[in-house]
C-alpha cells in the first residue's frame, strides 16, 4: 500500500510539505511533514514545538489535510504506543532526548532534530502495517489538549494499572524461575536466530565506532577552519607591517585563508547533517532492533511459562477428576482460561518471529539505501570542499607572480 518512498521525503531541507506522487484520488496516499520548529517557554521548561502537516485521501482520516502542533514528548508517546502494539516490528528510532543541549538549542541542533522527527514519522507512514495504526492517526490529528492528556498519562511514575500488573507478573515469573531452579532465563535455541542476535549486537559496536569517528571528523573540520582563520589574520598583519609587494602577497594569502575557514565551517555542518546523523540514525535503528529482540525474548519466556503452567494445571485437573473432587469445575475453568492464554502467547510469539523475519530483510535493504545516500553526500561534500580549497589557492598564484616580478 506504500505509494511513495518515505526515505526521499526527509531529504527536503526546508521541510515543506511534499506533494503526493500520484495526485489521483483513486490511489491511496499518506504524506506527512514535520516543519516550522518554534522555541517556546523559558529556561528549564523551554521546549520546541513543530507543525505536523498531514495530507491524505485515506477514509480513516478526518480530511484531506490536517495541521497539528506537536512536541518531542508527543513523538515519544507515539513510539512507545507503537512499540507496545506492534511487537516484532522494528519501530523507527527517535533522536535522543538530550537534556543538556536543550539549553543551547542552536539553530543547527533544532534543524537536525526537526529532520530526524520528520524521518521518524515518514518511516511510520511508509510502513505497510504501522501506517494503519490508530495511534498514528491520533498523533496526526488529535487536538493539542487531547495529546497533552495522552502524553502525561504515559510519562512519569503514574503508569496505567495494566502496566503495574505486568511488572508484578514479571517479578512473579522471575521468582518462580528461581524457585524452580531455573537460573538461566529460558531462551530460544534457534541457531539462525542466535546468529542474527550476535550480528545485531556486533553491528552496534562497529557502527558506534564509525559514528564516533564521523563526529570527530566534524570537529576536526571546525578546528581546522578556526585555525585557518587565525592564521589568515596573523598573515594579514604581517603583510601590513611588510608593506611592499611582498606585503601585498601576504595580505592576499591571509584573505584566502579566511575564505577557506568559512568553507570549512560550512562543510563541518554539512558533514554533521548528511553523514554523521545518518550513522547515528543507523545506530539508533539497531538499538530499536535490540528492543524488539528483548520483546521477543519476553514473548518466548511467557509462552514457555504458560505452557509449563498449563501442563501443571492439566496434571492437577486429572488428579482432581480422578478423586471426583468438587473443585473440578473451577479447575477446569481455570485450565481452559490458561489454555486460551497459552495459545494466545504462542500465537503472539509466532507473530513476532514472522514479523521479524520480514523486518530484517526490509531493514537491510533500507539501510543499504540510507547509507548509500549518506556516502554519496559525504563524497560530494568532501569533493566540493577540496575543489574549493584548490581553486582558492590556485587563484592566488598569479597574484604572487605579479608581486615577485615587481
Amino acid at each position, binding site marked *: 500500500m506504500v505509494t511513495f518512498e518515505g526515505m526521499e521525503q526527509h531529504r527536503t531541507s526546508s521541510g515543506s510539505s511534499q506533494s503526493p506522487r500520484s495526485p489521483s484520488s483513486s490511489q491511496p496516499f499518506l504524506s506527512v511533514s514535520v516543519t516550522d520548529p518554534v522555541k517556546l517557554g523559558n529556561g528549564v521548561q523551554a521546549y520546541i514545538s513543530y507543525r505536523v502537516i498531514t495530507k491524505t485521501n485515506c477514509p480513516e482520516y478526518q480530511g484531506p489535510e490536517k495541521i497539528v502542533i506537536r512536541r518531542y514528548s508527543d513523538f515519544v508517546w507515539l513510539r512507545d504506543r507503537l512499540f507496545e502494539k506492534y511487537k516484532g516490528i522494528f519501530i523507527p528510532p527517535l533522536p535522543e532526548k538530550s537534556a543538556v543541549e536543550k539549553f543551547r538549542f542552536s539553530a543547527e541542533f533544532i534543524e537536525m532534530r526537526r529532520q530526524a522527527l520528520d524521518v521518524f514519522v515518514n518511516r511510520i507512514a511508509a510502513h505497510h502495517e504501522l501506517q494503519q495504526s490508530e495511534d498514528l492517526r491520533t498523533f496526526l490529528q488529535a487536538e493539542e489538549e487531547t495529546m497533552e492528556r495522552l502524553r502525561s498519562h504515559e510519562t512519569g511514575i503514574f503508569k496505567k494499572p495494566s502496566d503495574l500488573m505486568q511488572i508484578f507478573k514479571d517479578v512473579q515469573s522471575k521468582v518462580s524461575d528461581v524457585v524452580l531452579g531455573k537460573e538461566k532465563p529460558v531462551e530460544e535455541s534457534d541457531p539462525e536466530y542466535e546468529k542474527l542476535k550476535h550480528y545485531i549486537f556486533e553491528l552496534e559496536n562497529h557502527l558506534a565506532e564509525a559514528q564516533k*569517528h564521523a563526529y570527530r571528523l566534524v570537529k576536526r573540520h571546525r578546528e581546522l577552519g578556526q585555525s585557518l582563520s587565525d592564521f589568515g589574520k596573523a598573515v594579514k598583519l604581517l603583510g601590513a607591517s611588510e608593506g611592499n609587494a611582498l606585503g601585498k602577497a601576504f595580505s592576499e*594569502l591571509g584573505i584566502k585563508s579566511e575564505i577557506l575557514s568559512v568553507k570549512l565551517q560550512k562543510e563541518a555542518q554539512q558533514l554533521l547533517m548528511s553523514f554523521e546523523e545518518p550513522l547515528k540514525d543507523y545506530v539508533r535503528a539497531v538499538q530499536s532492533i535490540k528492543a524488539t529482540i528483548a520483546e521477543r525474548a519476553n514473548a518466548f519466556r511467557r509462552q514457555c511459562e504458560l505452557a509449563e503452567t498449563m501442563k501443571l494445571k492439566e496434571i492437577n485437573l486429572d488428579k482432581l477428576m480422578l478423586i471426583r473432587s468438587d473443585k473440578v469445575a473451577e479447575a477446569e475453568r481455570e485450565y481452559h482460561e490458561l489454555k486460551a492464554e497459552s495459545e494466545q502467547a504462542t500465537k503472539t510469539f509466532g507473530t513476532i518471529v514472522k514479523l521479524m523475519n520480514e523486518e530484517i530483510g526490509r531493514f537491510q535493504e533500507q539501510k543499504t*539505501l540510507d547509507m548509500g*545516500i549518506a*556516502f554519496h553526500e559525504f563524497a*560530494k561534500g568532501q569533493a566540493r570542499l577540496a575543489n574549493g580549497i584548490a581553486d582558492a589557492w590556485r587563484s592566488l*598564484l598569479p597574484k604572487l607572480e605579479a608581486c615577485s616580478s615587481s
Partner: protein
Amino acid sequence: MMNQDHVLRASQDDEMESLVLHDDNDSSGNSQQPQSPKSPFNSFLDPPSYAEAIFTSFDSNGHDQTLEPSPRSGSESDYIQIMVSDPQEEQELTNSLVPGGTTYHTYLITTRTNKPEFGGVGSEFSVRRRFREVVTLSERLSEAYRGYVIPVRPEKSSVERKVMQKEEFVEQRRVALEKYLKKLGSHPVIGKSEELKLFLEVQGKLPLMRSTDVASRMLDGAVRLPRQLFGAEPVAVDLNDVVQPAKSGRDLLRIFKELKQSVTNDWGAAKPLVVEEDKDFMEKKDKLMEFEQQLSNVSQQAESLVKFQQDMGETMGELGLAFVKLTKFETEEALFETQRVRAGDMRNVATAAVKSSRLYRELNTQTIKHLDKLHEYLGTMLAINNAFSDRSSALLTVQTLSSELASLHLRIEKLEVASSRIFGGDKSRMRKIEELKEAVRVTESAKNCADREYERIKENNRSELERIDKERQTDFQSMLRGFVVNQAGYAEKMAAVWEKLAEETATYSRDSS
C-alpha cells in the same frame, strides 16, 4: 619540536596502515589480484597509484631545503657545501683523579668548495669537531665582526639533553650544526673569514683564541690607552680594548663608567654629547621590531595550522579503519545480497578515507618544510638584534669617552684658573695640569679610534640590512609560492579521491531516479 610529534604519530599511522594495505609495498600501481577468502582483509583496498614523482613537481619551484641552495651571487667561486655527519662518542680526558670520566660527541665536518680563500676550485676537506669548539668559533666571530648579522649558533640546551634520548639529541644537534655552518659559509663576509677557515680546515684542536690578530686587522695605529683613564694605574693598555665591548672580570671599572653613562643617557636631564642621529636607522629598527612581532605570531599560527591539518588526517584515517572493519564484518556475516552491496560501498568509503588521510600526512610534511622558513627568519631577527647591540655598545663607548674628555677639560680649566691666581705659578698644580693634558691626548686618540669603530659598525649594519632585506624578499616569496602550490596540489588530489567515491555511489543520488 614538530618533528618529534611526527615520529610518534607516524608509528601509530603505520600500525593502522599495515593492517589495511599489506600489499602496498608489493605493487606500484598494479591492480590488485583477489586474495584467498582466508584473508579478505588484505584485498579490501587498492594500493594508491600516485607516485612520489608527481609530488616533487609541486616543489620544483618551491624551496626544497634538502637540496643545496644555489649560491646567491650566482658565481662559481662562491660555492661552498658543508656537511655534518658521523657523530661519535669520545672519552673526556680529565686531569682529575676521579676515574671513568664523562663523554662527549664529535662530528665529522666535510667541506666542498670552490672559494679561493679555501684553496680554490674543487677543494675538499674534513675535520672532526666537538660542540665546544663551535661555541668558541661563534664567540670569536662575534668579537671580530661587530655590526655584521652573524647567524646565531645552536644552543647548548642542557635541559633537552637530559630529557631526550641520547641518539635523538645527538641527531638534533647534528642537524642544527649543519644548518648553522651552512649559513656561516654562505655569508658574504664570514664565509671568507679566517676564523671559519681555521675551523673547517685545521685538524686537531681548534687554533682560535681570544684577542689575537684582531688589533692588526682593525686598528690603524698602536696607540695605547692608559688604564689611568679607567683606573689609577699608569699602565699602558692595548687600544683594541677600546674597540671591544667591556667584558666582565677584566674591565669592571670600564663597565661601571659605561653603565654610569648609559644611566645618564636614560635619566639625565642633559642629552649625551653623541647620539644616534641616523633617523633612517631608527625607522628601520622600529619597522624590524614590528616585523619580528608579526612574524612570531604567524609562526605560532602556522604551527597550530600544521597540528590541525595533522589531526584531520588522523581522524580521517581512523574513520577509514572503522569502515574497513565494518566492511569485513558485513561481508563475513552477510545473509542478504544487499549486505554485500553495502559492504562494497563501505569498502569504497574506507579506501577514499585512507587515501585522503595519507594525502593529509604528506601535505603536512611539505607544509612544515615550507613554513620552516618563518622559524629561520626568527633566528635571523635574533642575529640582527645582536648586530644592533654591537652598534649600541660601540656608541656607548664613544659617549663614555666623550664625557670623560669633557670632564678632563673641565678639570684642566679649573686648575688653570686656580693656578693663575698664584703669582709665579703653582708647581704641584702645573704638574697636575700637564698630567691631565697628557690624559686628554690619549683619551682623544682613544675616542678617535672608538669613533672610527662606531662608524664601521654602522656601515656594517647598513649593508647587512640591505643584503638581508633582499634575501628575505626572495626567500619569503618562494616560501609563499611553495606553500600555496603545495596546498593547491594536494587539495586537487583529494578532490579526485572524493570525486571517485561520488561516482561509485552515484546510484544513490537523489538526482538519479
